[in-house]
């Protein structure tokens, strides 16, 4: 049996690739990012606190909407994060399916409920805001509807993650759904431009200076940055929980658990 012993030697690139794959392994992810959680949390807290106080107490009111516009400081970060997180899920899905990097799938699983939560927050704050400005809690306007659809998409993704929790297929189905569902993102993003709607167009663009006064957009920017930091914190923390669960049989987890109980 000559050919049974004839193991092909891996090429250099294969070895480099293998090396890369091991660095994004679950253990490495845990080791690398666990210490960040504290610092990210502190930073996020500072940003959000300053942003909130500034936005609520110091910023001048909008000449049209009065003080109700202060909802913007949570509405916009929540909405924009909800969209970004879904995009991240799609990207992570591709990474998981194409390069078979398990950590990507765990990050996605950790992020999905967070995205759903933010989507629900943006819907709730939006509809509360709608009452004083448009006189009703809900209109079937393109942006609102597409945001609702995003919430449904999140619900589907979460349902799939939960349903496959205990199988070898974990996350594959959800990854595929994230990718297929991502075609909706442009529709949500550009619904305001495609259809004439009640909802506000973009204020922040990369090409133009913001039309708001600095006292309004500065706290908003702080809130957005704080929001992203908070999401990063929670994503790392939750991913690490999933890693501990997934790798509970491994020696390094046992070691870690022993360390925790000292």
């Amino acid at each position, binding site marked *: 049996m000559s050919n049974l012993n004839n193991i092909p030697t891996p090429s250099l690139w294969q070895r480099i690739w293998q090396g890369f794959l091991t660095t994004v392994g679950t253990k490495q992810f845990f080791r690398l990012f666990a210490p960040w959680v504290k610092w990210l949390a502190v930073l996020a807290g500072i940003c959000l606190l300053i942003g*909130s106080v500034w936005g609520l*107490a110091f910023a001048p009111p909008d000449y049209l909407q009065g003080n*109700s516009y*202060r*909802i913007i400081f949570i509405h916009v970060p929540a909405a924009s994060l909800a969209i970004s997180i879904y995009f991240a899920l799609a990207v992570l899905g591709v990474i998981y399916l194409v390069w078979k990097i398990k950590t990507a799938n765990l990050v996605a699983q950790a992020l999905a409920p967070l995205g759903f939560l933010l989507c629900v927050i943006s819907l709730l704050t939006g509809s*509360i805001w709608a009452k*004083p400005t448009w006189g009703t809690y809900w209109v079937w306007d393109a942006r609102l509807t597409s945001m609702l659809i995003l919430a449904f998409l999140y619900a589907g993704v979460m349902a799939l993650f939960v349903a496959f929790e205990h199988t070898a297929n974990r996350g594959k189905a959800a990854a595929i759904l994230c990718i297929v569902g991502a075609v909706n993102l442009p529709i949500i993003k550009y619904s305001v431009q495609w259809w004439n709607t009640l909802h506000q167009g973009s204020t922040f663009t990369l090409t133009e200076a913001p039309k708001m006064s600095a006292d309004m957009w500065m706290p908003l920017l702080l809130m957005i940055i704080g929001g992203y930091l908070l999401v990063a914190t*929670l994503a790392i923390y939750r991913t690490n929980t999933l890693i501990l669960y997934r790798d509970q049989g491994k020696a390094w987890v046992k070691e870690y*658990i022993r360390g925790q109980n000292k």
Partner: protein
Amino acid sequence: MQPYFYSLSEFIAMGDHGVFVWSCWAITVGMIFIFIWYSRYQRQALIRQLTIQQARQAQRGSNIKKPSAS
């Protein structure tokens, strides 16, 4: 920098829009804190469970093969 509101009651009232603004803030902060608490709870519950499991394994010290708990 100047605070926009002169008094606390004014700050709470926010013109006529206090209800809307504060309910938004309450909902958001509440939900996010519950989420953070839940994430922490999950981690702690897992660590507790794994600790118990380890203690049991150590105690038995045998290698009875159990099907994976999946």
